[in-house]
């Protein structure tokens, strides 16, 4: 049982980094927010981008990296950003 619990946090961390990279790539315009605005992980800017992604894909807008959002992030896709760039 302990090994299971050890695996869960790692998966969450992997998902977090995957989501961060995805949002940086597809939901940041090149003119881009100032680094300060990005703030600490899980900051307001990140939640705002998660909501933008959920709105774009018609998902329930929770601002959280829930299962439907992570499933969408893991789908193969086009490399052009979804927000104006």
């Amino acid at each position, binding site marked *: 049982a302990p090994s299971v619990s050890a695996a869960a946090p790692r998966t969450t961390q992997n998902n977090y980094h995957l989501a961060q990279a995805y949002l940086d*790539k*597809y939901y940041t315009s090149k003119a881009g927010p100032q680094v300060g605005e990005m703030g600490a992980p899980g900051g307001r800017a990140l939640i705002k981008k998660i909501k933008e992604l959920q709105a*774009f*894909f*018609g998902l329930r807008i929770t601002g959280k990296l829930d299962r439907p959002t992570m499933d*969408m992030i893991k*789908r*193969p*896709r*086009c*490399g*052009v950003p*979804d927000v*104006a*760039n």
Partner: protein
Amino acid sequence: YRLFPGEPKWKKNTLTYRISKYTSSMSPAEVDKAVEMALQAWGSAVPLSFIRVNSGEADIMISFETGDHGDSYPFDGPRGTLAHAFAPGEGLGGDTHFDNAEKWTMGMNGFNLFTVAAHEFGHALGLAHSTDPSALMYPTYKYQHPYGFHLPKDDVKGIQALYGPRKTL
């Protein structure tokens, strides 16, 4: 549908394209066919025609690239990002790159090149991503059968907003 900021479009009705680098997972003839069918999908809806050239610069330069290939948008290996294209314009404008780390195919045992090429050429002609899940310009991969393919309504509206409808005789 969505257009790019400033609504860039080609100011001419005949565009040239050139496939400058191929992939090892399909024969050159298959790549040529998939690209031709993908361009024709858009050409059937608007008064645009596409001429293939085999040397020099073309409006739409097409190539299979790996990792960092010099345009500030590095590819990421298998899955993830499959391809990208640039909005109409000089230089890189219209150019379309496919991630050579993917397994490309004419069928369904990999990523169907027609499907991805048709989507990317939408960008090369001026369309951004659509929020309509049934649209070809929806950002995530969804297999489209190349033969008998018709552009979904959302994509027809988008491309005709830029170039007007193709006049039927």
